[in-house]
Each structure stands twice: as structure tokens, then as C-alpha cells.
């Protein structure tokens, strides 16, 4: 087993190579998105769908996923597929709690990172050292990590005040920041005016009580972009993901940079775990990560192996999850309308412009169904609401996947001197 099948993804090779989308388009689409949301809010009266609260929640939900995704980016840009993120994240939750309780919250972050690094070291040894298939090694790691974590937790937390085999005592929390003055927007938001209130909510959600770690996370996204695309180190690391053999012949120590990539990925996943344990919960809890590692991987992929993209992906997931957790009844219900409209638009476009009858009809039918669902129900069952984030992810993947391009040598096993 190696990098998995290329079927379907092969389409990519022909896909236009215009990797850079001009910022003005990004901004424009962003603005359009906000207008769309506020329209939706006014129409459906689901005032929560772009409230400060949901934005804030989306951010908090996005941070661990985003950090995991960023971890994925580092390792896959170095050519090592990493589905062990989940495991590294789990180790991170324990490491953060243990160190956090022992030496205080700041050391907690360090603890999480170190724990993640340990997991990464295993993955690096297996994939880079022994040339084991990357996914296989990742799967194995995802078996070891929970076991090791729960074993360590049992050994360390039982007997502590308020701790037990499955949970740690509370960890002192890390500071949070708010941009002064922004809270004033509260009233404006409360009016529920078209656009104005929406913007107010957005800004307030983004600029009030941010955890320090959230800010780190944002800096890390930007920093990762800078390091990977603007420094010699980054160039070398990426070259190991694109063409390790070429890199080798230019004197790049491919093994070394692959290991760097995997370790960085572990550190970030560990930090994600630390965030869950310290910021989202201020305690370690068995099973706390809830597959966020896998979600991070998905976010990275439909972020097209780029920092900006994966941040968007994580936010999308964080948002949908927040939406259903906060008030599935109205939020998700409102989104159904949105989905219906979008699907119908896409369907018509496919039919009339692209003359793709099948796709067009499918989209139209599904869209129509969604529309009916919206009209004839006024809430949504909690069971189904829970699937929203995953459905959305799947949908986006289905729409976007063919424009994605993974690093050319991603997942391929590399042995020194066996190139060509």
C-alpha cells in the first residue's frame, strides 16, 4: 500500500493551474457572503445565524480543528500524510492537563506540544525512518495514543482533588483579550437591522474575549504561511513534498526536513489538544477530542493544502457545528433554505450554461427537496442536526475536490539514493 489511488484526482492534472485567487475576489466573495447571511437572517428570522455569539463559538470551534489542519499542512507539505493527527491531539490533551496542573497553564501549553511531539516522533520513525505506508502508521498511532493517554491519565489523575481515571482536576485558565470599545456594538446588534447589525455581530464576535491561544492560532496560520512560502527553510521543506529526489540532488537532507515537517505537525496537533483541555474545557476529559483530528485533515484537504484555505475550512466546520449546538431548531433550519437556494442556482447553472443534464437535475431535485423541507417543517430533529457539519464538509469536498492539488510526492515513500 502506498499513497492510495489517484483515480479521479487525476482530473487535477488538467485543471487550470491558476493557484492564486486575487485578494479582491476573496474580499468580494466575503462581502457577498455577509450580505447573503444577513438576507437569510432577515428572511428566516433566525437571528442567531450571524450573532456575535455564534461567530465567537465558531472561532472557538475552529481553533482546534484549524491547528490540527495546520499540523496536517506541515507534514503533508513535507510529503508525509498524517492521519495520526487525532492521536497526537489526544496525547496533547493529557500533556496539557498534566503539565498545566503541575506547573500552571502556560506550561500546560508546552506540555500539550511536547506530548504531541512524542506522537509525531513515532510517526516520523515509522514513515521516514522505516518507510512504512503513511496511512498505516497513522492508523496505528490512532490506536496507541488513546490507550497510552488513558493509561497515563489513570496513573496521574486518580487521587488528585476532583480528578479520576477519565478526567483531570481543573486547570487554571489562560487569559483572554477583548478589543476595548467593541462591546458597544452590542446594542446595534440587538436592533437586528439589515447588514448593520450583522456586521456589528461579526466584529464583536471576532474581537471580544478571545483566548490568548486563539490569537496564537491565528498567528500560527500566518506564520506557517510565511515560513513555508517565504523562507529557505520552507522552500526546502516543500521541495520534499513536491520532488524529494530533486531536492536530494541539490544537497537537501530530505529525511531531516520530512522529520521537521512531521514534528511540527505533532506540535501543532498537541497544541490543538492543549486548547481543548485548557481553553475549551479547563480540564482533561477522556474522548475530549471527538475526532477533531480527522476533521482537521478534511479541513486541510479542502483548504487545498494552503494555510488560508484550511483556516476557511476550519471556520466553516466550526460555524456549522456551533450553529447546530447553539440552536439547531432555527439555525440549521435557516441553513436548509440557504442550501436549497444555492443548490437550485447551481442546478440551473449546470443545466443552462454547462449543459450537464444529470448533475443539473440532481442538484435541482435535491434543492427542491430541501426547499420543501424548509417550507413544511419549522425545526429540525436534533439527531439529524448533529450531522450538519459532516454533511457540509462532504458537500464542499464534492464540489471542490477536483480543483484541489496535493503536493506531488505526498504520501509517496522516499528512500535516499533510490530515486529516478
Amino acid at each position, binding site marked *: 500500500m502506498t499513497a492510495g489511488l489517484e483515480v479521479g484526482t487525476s482530473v487535477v492534472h*488538467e*485543471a*487550470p*493551474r491558476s493557484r492564486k485567487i486575487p485578494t479582491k475576489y476573496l474580499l468580494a466573495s466575503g462581502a457577498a457572503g455577509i450580505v447573503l447571511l444577513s438576507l437569510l437572517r432577515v428572511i428566516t428570522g433566525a437571528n442567531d445565524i450571524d450573532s456575535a455569539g455564534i461567530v465567537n463559538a465558531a472561532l472557538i470551534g475552529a481553533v482546534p480543528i484549524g491547528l490540527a489542519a495546520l499540523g496536517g499542512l506541515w507534514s503533508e507539505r513535507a510529503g508525509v500524510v498524517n492521519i495520526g493527527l487525532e492521536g497526537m491531539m489526544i496525547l496533547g490533551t493529557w500533556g496539557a492537563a498534566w503539565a498545566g496542573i503541575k506547573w500552571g497553564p502556560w506550561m500546560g501549553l508546552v506540555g500539550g506540544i511536547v506530548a504531541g511531539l512524542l506522537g509525531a516522533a513515532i510517526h516520523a520513525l515509522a514513515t521516514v525512518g522505516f518507510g512504512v505506508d503513511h496511512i498505516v502508521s497513522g492508523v496505528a498511532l490512532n490506536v496507541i495514543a488513546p490507550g497510552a493517554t488513558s493509561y497515563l491519565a489513570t496513573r496521574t489523575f486518580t487521587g488528585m482533588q476532583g480528578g479520576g481515571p477519565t478526567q483531570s482536576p481543573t486547570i487554571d485558565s489562560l487569559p483572554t483579550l477583548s478589543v476595548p470599545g467593541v462591546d458597544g456594538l452590542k446594542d446595534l446588534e440587538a436592533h437586528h437591522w439589515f447588514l448593520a447589525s450583522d456586521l456589528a455581530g461579526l466584529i464583536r464576535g471576532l474581537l471580544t474575549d478571545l483566548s490568548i491561544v486563539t490569537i496564537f492560532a491565528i498567528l500560527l496560520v500566518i506564520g506557517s504561511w510565511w515560513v513555508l512560502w*517565504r*523562507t*529557505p527553510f520552507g*522552500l*526546502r521543506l*516543500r*521541495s520534499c513534498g*513536491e*520532488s524529494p*529526489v*530533486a*531536492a*536530494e*540532488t*541539490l*544537497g*537537501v*537532507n530530505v529525511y531531516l526536513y520530512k522529520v521537521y515537517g512531521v514534528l511540527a505537525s505533532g506540535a501543532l496537533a498537541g497544541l490543538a489538544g492543549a486548547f481543548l483541555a485548557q481553553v475549551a474545557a479547563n480540564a482533561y476529559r477522556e474522548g475530549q477530542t471527538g475526532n477533531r483530528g480527522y476533521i482537521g485533515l478534511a479541513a486541510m484537504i479542502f483548504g487545498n493544502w494552503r494555510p488560508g484555505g484550511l483556516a476557511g475550512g476550519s471556520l466553516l466546520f466550526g460555524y456549522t457545528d456551533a450553529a447546530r449546538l447553539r440552536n439547531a431548531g432555527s439555525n440549521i433550519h435557516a441553513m436548509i433554505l440557504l442550501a436549497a437556494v444555492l443548490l437550485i442556482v447551481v442546478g440551473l447553472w449546470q443545466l443552462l450554461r454547462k449543459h450537464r443534464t444529470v448533475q443539473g437535475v440532481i442538484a435541482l431535485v435535491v434543492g427542491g427537496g430541501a426547499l420543501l423541507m424548509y417550507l413544511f417543517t419549522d425545526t429540525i430533529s436534533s439527531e439529524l442536526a448533529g450531522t450538519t457539519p459532516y454533511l457540509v464538509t462532504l458537500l464542499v469536498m464534492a464540489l471542490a475536490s477536483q480543483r484541489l*492539488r496535493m*503536493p*506531488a510526492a505526498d504520501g509517496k515513500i522516499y528512500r535516499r*539514493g533510490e530515486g*529516478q
Partner: protein
Amino acid sequence: MPDTDVAVELHGITKRFPGVVANKDIEIVVRRGTVHAIVGENGAGKSTLMKILYGVQKPDEGSITVNGQQQSFSSPTDAIKAGIGMVFQHFMLADNFTVLENVVLGAEQLHGIGGAARQEIERISSAYGLGVRPGDLVADLGVGARQRVEILKVLYRGAKILILDEPTAVLVPQEVDELFDNLAGLKAEGLTVIFISHKLDEVLKVADEITVIRRGTTVQTVEPKGVTARQLAELMVGSELPTPQTEESTVTDRVALQVKDASLGSATGPKVLDHIDLTIHAGEVLGIAGVEGNGQAELVEIIMGMRDASSGVITFGDTDITEWHTREIREAGIGYIPEDRHRHGLLLDAPLWENRILGHQTEEPNIKGFLIDGKDAKADTQRIVEQYDVRTPSIFVTAGSLSGGNQQKLIIGREMSHSPKVLVAAHPTRGVDVGAQAAIWDHIREARREGLGVLLISADLDELIGLSDTIRVILRGRLSDEFDPDTVTAEQLGAAMTGADTKEEQA
């Protein structure tokens, strides 16, 4: 007596690979400011030797002396430090990187990876007339341009000793001449060039000295004026050199395969295939010449049904096979010798007998109903091994453990065993040494005599001229008119292959 005008001295170099002695007691002295050619048949050990000199592989024995100093390179970094640069036989470029990124990679300390580096590249590019644009994405470049990027990579690192491993393999004569002009320029600058090639006339043209390697050992070092191409060849092979000879034409007027007005669009820019029309008659060998990347691969793929042409019709005999799937096409009797045997022709870690089944999973003797008939398949593999002289200890070893030539012979045998009516052969003798080459040519000729129609795609003009009944040139997805192999010269073909002198745009 190693004095200072010796750039490189290789002494007693020996390199063993698992079971192979690639180099044995190699002795070479390269004088500074000269072009030193190394010739030898495939697998003679040239690339290995150069990889050793460049620190990619470590020699088991022997010493390397550069500019009078004994060196032991543990990685290319050391070699680069010592002023050595290498352009590999198989390009070493990251397609998804820009030229800039490819060039500065590993040499960031020189001029960073930003504006300064860009300027330096542009300077070198214009200084040697390489015409390379730092911003381009390598994936968008043609072969010639890539070649020049590779050279630029080396110059950028300030190498004083350049190794070029079969740089001309993928170039057309005109491009070759340009390359040689560049080399002359480099030489004038006092640089030393080590130049590897099969093409002896070229070697004789540029080299100041020529070292011949046979089966891993240095046979002799000669001066170009002292020898003829034929003498060199005999030194290389150690025997008489076979040249392809077409005997009397066997072309019938029965159409075997016809492609009508086939085009293949690509999401990016120009068509990959542009209104292709070709006809192959039974008993005819239609040779397609062209610079790699001008649509040959795609032409083969649409014929073999691995891709759907965006328009056009393909008929086999008188049945329309345009919509057919690869398997049906193969079953119908179109044999296929792929360009890249390792990727398309073989399962490297499967035994030979399973590789004999590959491509004919639905045909006798490989199957009984919906089951695989291991027994018969093995028997037939044994037959192929003997009949086609595949050098292997048994049919149970993995294909990957055979040499390229033997791998190729297995593939030829496999395809011939199903008595195809049409054979699509892409570079059937690439990377195959002279002995095997001759054998493969004979097999093709024999089949041709029995009414086989052959589509022969090759970069080796001699092979084309020698085997084909008709030659056409493909350029930017378009087919030229027919050339008569008996009258056409390599230069004429070369001109057609590059569309006269406007080759830049083909990138």
C-alpha cells in the same frame, strides 16, 4: 602525475549494487577547461559513475581527486562545495515549483530566495543565452527549456565542473547545436564539462577527449580526431554494431488502423492533439518523430482508449473503436509497448508469469472462464522467456529484479504472443542495450512481414529511419506530411520537429 590543470581524477572507482558491479576500477583524468565525453552502452555504468562523482552514491573503492585535492563526498552538498554540478539523465525538477524556486533550492545562502536571486538568474540566463524566465512554472516548460533550467541550476551554484548525463537524449538537432554553443561558451569561461552520450557523432563534434566505458570498466581514452564513430561504437560494444535495415516494403493497401480528425483539448491553452489524421496499413510501419511532449503520449493514449479524444474517429480495420475501452481494444488485437515500462508495462513486484498475464487478463492462455489459469500462463511465460531470450533464472522472480532490457523483451514477447494486427510501440528500445535492441528490431520486422501494422514512436531518429515505411513528425499536437525514410535526413526531420526556429513557443 596529477598537476593543477587536472580538474577531476577518478582512480580505481568500484561500485557494487545488490548483485551488480556497476563500476569496476574506473580510471579517468579530466583536464580543466575541456569537454570530456564519456560513452558506453546502456547500463555500462556511466550514470552511476557520475552519481558517485556528484556524491549521490558512495563508491565502494577508489579515490576521487578534484583540483588536486583528494575528496570523499558523502552527499551532493560536498560535491557542490567542491565546485561540481550535475545535470541528470532524468530531469530533477519539481513541476509545481517556479523556475526560481527550482534554481535556488539548496543554494538559498547565495542570493536568498527573493529579488536578488531573481536578478542573478536573469543575469546568468542572458549571459549564456539560456532564455529562462524565473517566474515560469516548470510544469509549463518544454523539454528544451527544462534542460536549460537544469544547466542554469548548476551555473547558479558557481560550478566550475559540469556533468551532463545524456543531455541530448531528448533534444532535436537544432536544440543540440544550441546546447553545444552553450558548452563552447562555458569552456571559454574556463569551465570543465563532463559529457555523457550514446550519440557518437555528437561526441566527436564537441569532445576534446573521449573515455569509453564497457560493462563498468574504462576501456580506453581517445582523442576525437583519432577515431571514427564506428571505431568508438566497437570499443563501446566490443563487437560489430548492428544498424537497422528495412528490407523490401511489405506495405499492403489493407487499412489496419485509421485515426480521423482526432483532437484532444486541454483545460490550459492550446490543444494537445490537433486534428490528427493518420492511416496505418497492414504490413506498414508508421514512424512518428517529435520532441517529447508534443502529443505523442496523448496520441497513444487515445488510440489505446486510456483517454477519450474530444473529437474524431478511430477505426480498427473497418470497426469504429472510438468509444471502446482499453480492454476491448487490446482484445480486438492492438498490442501495446508502453513508453515507460516501469509505470505502464509491468508490475515490478509481481512475478514474471503474472506480468505475462497483465494486459491480457481476458485472453487465452491466461484464463479459464472467469478464473486465472496459472498453469497455462506459467507454461507460456516459460515459452516467451526462451523464445525472446529474456535473461532470468526463473519465471517466479519479480519483474523489478530484471534489467530494463530484459524487462522490455518480456513485454515484447507478451504482446507478440497474442498475434496483434496492430502494434503501438512507444520507444521500444529506449534504455535497452545494443544486443537487445537488435533483437527487438528483428521481432518488429518479422511481425511486419506477417502483415502487422505498427505505429512506432521514437526519439531515436536512426531507429525511425531504419524501421519505418513512412515517417511523420508531430509538433504541438499536429502531424506533418509524410517523409520518405529512404531520402530524409536527420536534419530535415529535426527542422520539422522544431517548426524551423520558432521552438520557444512550444513550451
